[in-house]
Each structure stands twice: as C-alpha cells, then as structure tokens.
C-alpha cells in the first residue's frame, strides 16, 4: 500500500461493531469509522466542531452520532450538525470491497484535509 493509490485499506467491515465505531490514526485529526444499525459504514474526522469531542465515543442512532461531551448530534452522512446547533465535520469518502473498508487516500492527507 502506498500513499499514491486512490484507496487505503483500513480493515475488515466486521471489525466495526454495529451501532458503534472504531478509530483510525491519520495525519491531522483521527478518523472515526461508524457502522449504523443497518450495517452502513461512514467515515468522519473524529472531532466535534463544538469543543473537539471524540465523536467515535458517542452513541450511534439512525445515521447520526451524539457527541459524548455536550450531546451535539452530527449527521454521519453529511457531517453536518443537526438541530439548533450549527457546524460541520469533514466526511471521508469510504468504499467497501470484498468485506474490506477502504478510505479515499486523497481525503486523508493533511494538505487536503
């Protein structure tokens, strides 16, 4: 694997618990990989736009996560903060191939991020 390929393999789909998450260390902020109840996968920067809380530690419901620090609700699909609060967390393009999770290499590098 090198940084020039389009997609980076970060692990198996089964490594991420349903309605839960795992983290990936990456340049810049870590990345949180989420799996919703229906098995859909999402990747966002692991940092709440409010006070920088680790979103990976929040409760996953529907396709949203609630930040563990101050209960901001963030859409995993768009990265946007829901409800009365405003803000946005960067989403990372994610693909699944043969049971493996791939992240877009371009979106990972600190320059682009």
């Amino acid at each position: 694997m090198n940084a020039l390929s389009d997609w980076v393999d970060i692990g198996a789909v089964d490594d991420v618990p349903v309605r839960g998450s795992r983290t990936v260390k990456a340049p810049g902020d870590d990345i949180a990989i989420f799996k919703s109840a229906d098995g859909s996968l999402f990747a966002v920067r692991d940092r709440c736009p409010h006070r920088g809380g680790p979103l990976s530690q929040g409760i996953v419901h529907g396709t949203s996560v609630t930040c563990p620090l101050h209960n901001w609700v963030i859409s995993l699909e768009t990265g946007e903060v829901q409800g009365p609060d405003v803000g946005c967390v960067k989403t990372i393009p994610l693909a699944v191939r043969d049971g493996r999770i791939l992240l877009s290499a371009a979106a990972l590098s600190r320059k682009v991020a």
Partner: protein
Amino acid sequence: MAEKLVVIGNGMAPGRALEKLFDKAPGTYEVTIFNAEPRVNYDRIMLSPVLSGEKSFDEIIIHGDSWYIDHNVMLYKGFRIDEIDRESKTVTASDGTTAEYDKLIIATGSVPIVIPVPGHDLPGVLTYRDLDDVQAMLLAAQSRGKAVVIGGGLLGLEAAAGLSDRGMDVTVLHLMPTLMERQLDPTAGHLLRKEVEARGINVITEANTKAILGDKKVTGIELEDGTVIPADLIVMAVGIRSNSAIAKNAGLTVNRGIVVDETMRTSDPDIFALGECAEAHGQVFGLVAPLYEMASVVASQLSGDESARFDPMVTATKLKVTGINLFSAGDFAEADGRDEIVLRDAARGIYRRLILEDNRVVGTVMYGDTSDGAWFFDLLKRGEDISDLRETLIFGPGYAGGAALDPTAAVAALPDDAEICGCNGICKGAITGKIAELGLTSLDDVRAHTKASVSCGTCTGLVEQLLTLTLGDAYDPAAVQPMCPCTDLGHDDIRRLIVAHELKTIPDLMQALEWKSSCGCAKCRPALNYYVLATWPGEYVDDGQSRFINERVHANIQKDGTYSVVPRMWGGMTSAKELRAIADVVDKFEIPSVKCTGGQRIDMLGVRKEDLPAVWADLNAAGLVSGHAYGKALRTVKTCVGTDWCRFGTQDSTGLGIRIEKFMWGSWTPAKVKMAVSGCPRNCSEATCKDVGIVCVDSGFDIHFAGAAGLDIKGTEVLTHVATEDEALEVIVALVQLYREQGRYLERIYKWAKRVGFDSIHASVVEDTDKRRALFDRFVFSQKFSQTDPWAERTEGARTQEFRPMADLSYMEAAE
C-alpha cells in the same frame, strides 16, 4: 355443506372482503386463497414508511398467520394462478395445484408500468409495488449511491423520500411541468417541489427518459435533451395498470380492467373481481377507500344481501412523507362557472384553495396545514350550499359561520357520518359512539376498538380531537411528557408496558411501542437499556452500544477525550499496597493528574483510552476493582472511622459502610446513588445530604434518604430508625430496589421521592414487611448477574479491540 370460495390474490381489498364476510356470514364458505406473493396480507399503503425506516414489515401486517388459521382459510403463499377453467369451475396454479370453486374472487391487483426504453431490463431497474421491491431498494440503498426515481407522483415521491432517508443521493424525473399534477394544482405542486428539494432531493420536471444506460447493470439514465444522470438504482413509479390477463384468457369481459357491474360480478355471475384489477362504472381505482367499499359490496353479495351496490365516491389524497402535509380532493381544474377562494401564506408555507361551482365545493387543495381537510372534504361529498359560510369558509370551521376559535371546532362541526379514517372507512359517529359505549380514554383504546388511525396514521390528530371533544378535560394527552421525540409515551408508561408485554429487548420494545425512529436516539436508548435490564435481570443481554461512553468503557471521559479512572475503596478505606499500586500505575502510564474525590477515593485523570485495559490489569493485580464512578449505579459509601477510632463513635460506621458497599456494588440504578454512614450525630461523613444516609446513634441506626448536594441542595428525610445492622441493610436495599423499579432514568432519589410521595415509599419499605422482604429478594436476585468487575472482564479480553485504533495511517503524512 359450506360452499367453496376461492380468492386469487391476497391484498388489502380481498382481505377486507373476507373480514366482512366472516363477520356477516361465518362458516358459509370454505375459503382458499392463492397469493403470488409469499406472505400474509399487509398494508401496502405503509410500504413507504417501511422504506424510510419509520416502520418495520411486522408493523404493517394486517392479517397474521393466526388469522388464517382462526378462520379456517387455506392460504397458498407464493402460488400464482395461471388458469381459470369456468367449465369445470377450477383454478390451476403454475405448479399444477388446482382448486374447485363455487364462487371465485379475482383480486389480482395491478402491475407497475415499465417504460419500454432501451435498458429497462437491466439489473438495478426496479418498480415500486410490493415488499420485494422495498427490500430490493433497501439493499441498493446500502451503497448510499445515486438513485433516480422516474415519476413525480404519489408513489414516486414517497420512494424518493424513503431512499433519501436511507442515505441515497436521489433525483426525481417527472414528465409533467409540476409534481403530482393529478392531485395538486401548479401552486401546491411548486410548494411541494421546494419542500422536496429542501430535503436534498433533485427534481427535474419535463424530463423525458430516452434510455437507461449500463452494460451489465445500471450506470445512469439519459434524457431526450441529452442530459446524462449517473445512477446505481432506477425506480420506475410512473403508474399502474390493471392485472387482468388471467381474466381475459378465461374469456371474461376486460376493458381497462376486469369489467364488473354494480354488484362487483364479472361477466360470469359466479366470478367477482375487486381491487385495482376491477373496472367499475368505466373506471379503475387505485386508492384504498373505494377498494374497501368494493370489498364491502362483495362481502354483502356473498352473504346473501343482493341489494349492495358499489357507488364510487370522491376520494382524497394524502402524501405519506413525514413532515410534508398535503391534501387534495375532488376536481380542481379551472372551468367556466367555477370560482375559487385562495389562502396563501408563503412565509409559513401554507396554501389552501377551494374550487366552487354553484356555491358548492367541488375541489380542494391544501398544503402545509391540512388539519381542516376532513371538514372541507365532507362539504364536498355532501355538495352542501356554502353561500352563508363563504366569507370565512377558507379559514376552516374554526371561523366559518362565526363560531368561536377552538381547536376542536373542526371536528365538532363534522356530522356523525363524516369520514375520519379514510383508510379504514371509519366515520365520526363510529368513533364517538365507541368512546362513549366502552368508556375509551386513550388513542390506543380507540385504535384497538375502531381501527381508526391504525393504517397510515394521518388522521391521528382528528381522532385525538374526537377524544377531547367527547371526554372534555378527562382526555389530556399532554399530561404525559414523552420520553423523547422517538415516542409519544412517557417513562412510566414505557416501564409499565415493558412488564405488561414482556418486552425483553430494545428492538422488541421499539417494535411493540411503535417507536418513530429506526433505532432510537441518544436520549431514549440508555433509558430503555436500563429499564429492560432492571426489569429482566438474568434474561436481558446488556446493550453496550446503548450506554453512554463512560459506562461502555468503565471510565469517565474528559474534555480532551482522555479518561479518568477511579478504583473502588470500600467505605473509603485503603492500604499501603493499594496506594503503591496506584502510584506505580501513575508512573508507568504517565498519568498527568491524581486527585482525591469527594467520595473518599482516588481519581487518576488523563488516561489515554488505549491504555485503559493495561491500567485496569495493573490495578486488578493489587486487588483494586472498578469504582463505578462513571455509572448510573452505586457510587460510594462514604464513612467516618466510628467506634474503631473515634472517641464519640456509637457504632462501627466504617464496617457498616463497607458491608453496604460490598452488598450493593455493581447494581444499576436510574441515576447515580451516593451513600454515607456517620458514626454519631456529628455526622462527619455528611450522611444527611446523600441519596441514602445512615446516622448511627446509641440505640441503633437512623436511616435517611432523598438528600441532595449538587444542582439542588436538600437535607435528607428520615425514613425510619432500626436497632440492628441487619435491619438497616434490609431497609436500605429495599429502598434502592423500589427506586430501581419506579425511578425514571436520570431521576435522582430525591426527585423520585418527591414525585411518588414519601408516604408511599415509607409504606412499602418500612410498614409492609412482606413487601420489604420481596423488594430485598428481588435486589439480591438481580445482584447475581451484576457483581462482575467490568475491569477484570475487559482485561481478560472481552471486546478489547474497542480500545485500539483499527488502523494507523499517520505514516501518510510523511509521504506528502
């Protein structure tokens, strides 16, 4: 001997016909049903909520398997009838199964129209008709790719909204200039388009599909004007046509549908047709109300009432997309001799238009606020002269005729035979009659006894208003604060229903209690997890993903994402060995802060998540276990040194504190529980501001409870005085168990006590010794499953991967 009745098709219309037939003439027929779909009768109208995730399939079943068994119906699931032999009066299925009939009902429904453009048969092109289509769409939606829905009518928009809710990037193509042009006028169509677009769905009108692109599967769609839209999924929702081939082959008269007379008989008097496959009065019907009317006629005819006639009625349309309210009925085309009244409030997104002819309402379109729809629809159906109301008519019955503005005025103004629930054909009189007759007091009661509001649910507001109207102040839906936006039920109802319906998992509970969201929210999930756990000890498997992070990783999250770790110190006692172990852990893991807590323990702050298992392992090795400082659980039992050392001590307060803590640790409670034992009334352990406190005196133990020293400051109440330690333990355990059973999630003991009343608690844990013993026993039983040190469990390998990143890509920085 019973006559043989064979039904081809098992949709909503024949289901309703059989229901009515079994009511009117039980046992007259021996019924056999052939269903091409491999399942029971379900509410097809509710497929859209299944697609969007607001409901599950089980929730939309009309007749479960037991219904067929109870009525002695032979149901062939997944059997398609190929042939009707009218000579021998038999039907034959594709696998050769045959059945004889005396009377036959054809209810084959409709088939979706597929536009025969190039590529229409590629994998990835779906229609929207039955559960199989929904399941195929859900599967496709998992990719969260791009979807194109062809058709901006009712079904197309519901499909688009559902797919968008499921995370797909959706484009709707519509041939006409405005959406839903058959049900809406251009203005309402425009408002609808704005709302649909605001949900992130692209809308292209006047879009003429030229070809569906793709080689092995769909990759996109090309329009006549050359536009190419990439797509992984294409849903055609452009209309339906009657499924009448089998009738035609049997030589029955078929036009646009299977032609029936007013009695719903086809050209063969022993054969009926009903539902979307039938053509009556030169029309075919697609909405549920006229189809149910047909069903009722067929049932009457079969039960010997030959006077029953089908008379098509005006129908109203609603869109089942949460948050979009629109209503239309009748004819709203402009024409000579027609005038209209329009109310428009663009800022609030409200639009109302009434079309009048000869001072009668002939059509109505409403967008935004549709609450008066039933009233207008009723005026329309009756053809009532509205000259006297005209000035205020558009404002609805709240104003019309100068009546006082009252939210229930709209329903109050309706006559008894006005239809409230269009899906099930339930009129106002039937509902108010049942409320009075059976003394119904809740929406659920009304649903159970009348079937009103059980299908699409859009009439729920009207049914509630009828309850208000009939019961007055006795009906107070707002009295109960819903637990969260996912439900209308309050905490107490949910706890009661968990017991009553034996709900033992969160998915079961959400299913049974009609949760409005697919898997709850951060507010309800932890509460439900606690309620089910506390109700079914030993049976319920704790759902870690429904717990707040602190309880999931047995440590307290800090503002920088690190954690604090607090080991238990029984009764506040520690030793050189424990302190040494703590010191070693602090050094080894470079823990930045060490602090004494208010509960007589030591807090290590700033531990990295990935270090947690190793920190616990080292602490465990010295005999230290989790202090549950992170949990809605027993925290600490603070003590003074009592008779061990203190010259004023009256009892062994330290020993009692340790005994209580060892007995009760690990139990989950609605909110945190802090306790203290003081050895004398000087009260050095501050027992009189705790959730539960004991103040020792010469003659025994004063048991206090319901104190607070946080957001609120409140001294405790005295619960009772006991003479021995054993009695003290029994009373305290019973008190906490009662709180575990009655407390609302996150409700501290002092708030619970205030809500249920100190007297009721005193009665249960002090006066009634049997009750106290039973509470004590239930606590002891539940402790059998709770006293496992979560730290030891996790260091032994349970779900340790949670603490590690799944990959490390930090090297990528260097490559840049």
